[in-house]
């Protein structure tokens, strides 16, 4: 199983090399075999007697992060979708993408996504799951932005990335809390500890964080806004990521965590409310669209809402209907996206207002579209799988409870489905029937090449097969998938005709009212434009993004002035505040007068002169005078070293100070004269505060370090071992050349680098003159 997850990633490494051959062999042909083999591998698991399996691999055991893969009915449904639809999409893309495109990039991203998505649905470890989850967002970002020269593509890519990654991070927060509460990182082990989680104070937070991740990923209202913009991706990507697989990761997450949250009523209420709201809003918005892919995008949003709502109902019938619809939606919506791609490819436009009457020109495509749209609309015909799950949805929406809100759900379900019916009909009849406007089309349309038709044909065959023999998929894996979400689900036959029962009446109402609305749609156009009017969620998103940009620019410009002095003040000021705070909070200040050395007049005199000289450097406005004053400080340091019995450093200090003064004199001669400071009193005051504050800090640190002895001095070690180990009498010298010899080596290296830099600086001047 682990190979199934990782092989796409491994193969992706070879794609750049293979894409060099693209003039001879389309890169997609190599890629096609990967999802196809994975599909064949997982098909072997299908069967009535399926039992979940677990594979464990150690990854970071010290952190409890193991690469555990868990295959149950739910994962099986998803891996089959990912690999199955993946194979068809790759096949379709071979004809959709011209050899002049950057095929290498496309297939690398696609394979990356495949690995990531398989990882999401198979991981048992929450942190592994999270990693793959974010990887799907990243590959989706790359695929949406595939035609990166288009402004809309970049906008859509960024939008989807920001929204889904925001949700992903929130989900990570939920996962961490779950880990804190249960002490395990395995989902299956968490399910055994449900009581712990349900009694935890963090439960509302956990639920909120995880649902936010699921809702953003599955484009639930009001986070749905990224999905329509994601349609800028090449159509195979839209069919694959943004309808069949990635957007269902949120549903997967809700389903996966259903056993954990099933004891918590808020879970069902929140998921149902968001699901129903998304169903209605998405279907309503879809009716107003004129772009084929935009219609499909909003339709996907609404269908995702419907599945989400069913997961929210949580009853046996609802959960089964949810997994059934996940499968059905992937088949009919996948084929519809491919049809939209074909229409776009052959006519050069996706604007439904310019299209019409294509049925006679593209009969095969039109037939495929008819099956897809009618299945999506839930027309009660025995060979359309969409009808079965739609009717199960109606059945599940009835009888949820006696209170007012539960009673409204069937009506909202019907309302959303009516809009679904209207846009489905519009999609089909608007494109394939009616008047032809061939003059408005950029290209002269004709039937698509057979290669492009294979994938949608297979999907439509799937639609019909599932429609005719629903129990074939039901017994072999749908029942296992439903049982993984709600263990009380048992096998139940799915039949077309139940009699004249309420769900069937609801379907008839949808078809009836829908037909009326569709036929009279011209009269309603004004109303469709009325909502949402100016207050749209896109505006809110754009506004927020714009504001974030502006505010951070303003903040950055405020302190990034380009003036090094300002930076210096900021750094020193921060250091000052942090150090004082730290010293204060940890009670670090200490003051003791024990063991102080004697004070003699000569020392005080030297120190006094040094202090005066140091302060004088600030007021000196003459180059030579300033150097001399600095020299006074330097020689004062040397005298102190002599007094305090440090002959070696006193000597060094004397030599170095002499050279430094000479060097200063040499350079100062060429430098502009010192001037009086022209700063405003305010700047001067700020500088004074910072420097005096720093001086005080240093004094306090020095006194505190003297006053507190936490360890014995290690000086005795050097005193005792200087002769036996180092073979020298001068202890300081022995430390330098022996005990800490490497430090001295580096010190020499620093000097060498400084010397080279100086030579470089001077050379640079000569070269300049040569020009």
């Amino acid at each position: 199983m682990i190979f199934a997850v990782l092989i796409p990633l491994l193969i992706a490494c070879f794609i750049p090399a293979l894409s060099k051959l693209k003039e001879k062999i389309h890169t997609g042909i190599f890629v096609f075999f990967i999802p196809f083999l994975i599909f064949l591998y997982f098909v072997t698991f299908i069967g009535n007697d399926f039992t979940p399996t677990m594979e464990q691999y150690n990854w970071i055991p010290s952190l409890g992060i193991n690469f555990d893969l868990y295959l149950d009915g739910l994962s099986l449904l998803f891996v089959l979708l990912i690999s199955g639809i993946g194979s068809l999409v790759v096949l379709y893309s071979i004809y959709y993408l011209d050899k002049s495109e950057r095929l290498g990039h496309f297939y690398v991203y696609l394979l990356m996504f495949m690995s990531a998505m398989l990882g999401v649905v198979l991981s048992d470890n929450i942190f592994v799951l999270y990693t793959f989850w974010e990887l799907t967002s990243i590959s989706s970002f790359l695929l949406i932005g595939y035609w990166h020269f288009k402004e809309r593509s970049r906008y859509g890519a960024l939008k989807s990335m920001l929204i889904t990654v925001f949700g992903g991070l929130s989900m990570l927060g939920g996962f961490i809390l779950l880990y804190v509460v249960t002490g395990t990182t395995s989902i299956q082990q968490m399910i055994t500890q449900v009581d712990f989680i349900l009694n935890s104070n963090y439960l509302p937070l956990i639920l909120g964080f995880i649902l936010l991740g699921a809702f953003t990923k599955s484009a639930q209202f009001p986070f749905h806004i990224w999905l329509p913009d994601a349609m800028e991706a090449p159509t195979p990507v839209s069919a694959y990521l943004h309808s069949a697989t990635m957007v269902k990761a949120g549903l997967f997450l809700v389903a996966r965590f259903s056993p954990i949250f099933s004891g918590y009523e808020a879970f069902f209420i929140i998921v149902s409310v968001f699901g129903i709201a998304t169903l209605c809003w998405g279907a309503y918005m879809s009716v107003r669209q004129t772009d084929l892919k935009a219609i499909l995008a909003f339709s996907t949003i609404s269908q995702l809402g419907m599945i989400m709502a069913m997961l929210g109902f949580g009853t046996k019938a609802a959960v089964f209907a949810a997994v059934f619809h996940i499968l059905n939606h992937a088949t009919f919506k996948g084929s519809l996206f491919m049809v939209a791609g074909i229409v776009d490819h052959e006519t050069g436009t996706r604007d439904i207002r310019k299209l019409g009457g294509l049925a006679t020109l593209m009969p095969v495509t039109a037939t495929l579209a008819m099956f897809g749209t009618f299945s999506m609309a839930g027309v009660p015909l025995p060979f359309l799988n969409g009808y079965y799950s739609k009717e199960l949805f109606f059945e599940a929406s009835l009888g949820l409870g006696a209170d007012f809100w539960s009673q409204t759900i069937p009506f909202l379900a019907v309302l959303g489905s009516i809009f679904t019916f209207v846009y489905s009909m519009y999609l089909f009849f608007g494109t394939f029937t009616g008047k032809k406007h061939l003059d408005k089309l950029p290209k002269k349309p004709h039937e698509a090449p057979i290669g492009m038709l294979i994938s949608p044909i297979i999907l439509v065959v799937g639609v019909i097969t599932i429609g005719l023999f629903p129990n074939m998929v039901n017994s072999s894996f749908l029942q296992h998938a439903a049982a993984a979400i709600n263990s009380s689900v048992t096998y139940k036959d799915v039949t077309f005709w139940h009699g004249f029962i309420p769900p069937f009446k609801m379907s008839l109402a949808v078809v009836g009212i829908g037909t009326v609305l569709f036929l009279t749609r011209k009269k309603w156009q004004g109303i469709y434009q009325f909502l949402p009017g100016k207050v749209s969620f896109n505006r809110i998103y754009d506004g927020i993004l714009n504001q974030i940009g502006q505010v951070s620019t303003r903040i950055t410009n405020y302190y990034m002035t380009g003036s090094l002095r300002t930076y210096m003040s900021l750094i020193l000021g921060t250091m000052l505040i942090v150090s004082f705070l730290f010293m204060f909070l940890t009670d670090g200040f200490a003051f003791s007068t024990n063991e102080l050395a004697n004070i003699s007049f000569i020392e005080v005199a030297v120190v006094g002169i040094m202090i005066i000289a140091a302060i004088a450097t600030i007021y000196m406005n003459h180059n030579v005078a300033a150097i001399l004053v600095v020299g006074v400080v330097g020689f004062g340091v040397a005298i102190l070293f002599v007094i305090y019995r440090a002959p070696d450093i006193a000597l060094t200090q004397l030599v170095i100070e002499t050279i430094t003064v000479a060097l200063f004199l040499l350079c100062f001669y060429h430098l502009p004269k010192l001037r009086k400071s022209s700063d405003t009193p305010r700047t001067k005051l700020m500088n004074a505060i910072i420097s005096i504050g720093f001086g005080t800090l240093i004094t306090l640190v020095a006194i505190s370090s003297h006053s507190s002895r936490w360890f014995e001095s290690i000086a005795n070690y050097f005193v005792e071992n200087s002769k036996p180990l180092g073979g020298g009498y001068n202890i300081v010298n022995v430390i330098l050349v022996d005990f800490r010899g490497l430090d001295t080596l580096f010190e020499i290296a620093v000097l060498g680098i400084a010397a080279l830099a100086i030579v470089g600086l001077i050379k640079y001047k000569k070269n300049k003159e040569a020009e």
Partner: protein
Amino acid sequence: MEIITSILAGVLFATAIYNMLQKQLLRIVIGTALLSHGAHILIFTMGKLKTGQPPILTDGIENYTDPLPQALILTSIVISFGVTSLLLVLAYRSTQENGTDNMEELRGNENE
């Protein structure tokens, strides 16, 4: 006496930083020179002052001053010399190339 040298270190740091916050490159170089002096005095004060004889092994003497701060300072003196001379040359060259030694005029361009 340690308290007095502590204050000296503080004063050296304060004046060093005040100089480093000035506009003129020269003052900044002076500031760094003062800063290293301050650091040396600080390290020196942290080891105790005048607790024994100079750290050169001599027969009959057991008590020596702490040699470790001295070794550290010796290294530091040499390095600060390297830094100061590099800064001096840098200041000199930068003044020559840019025609100004005023930090406020030495800013990056907006478009860089």
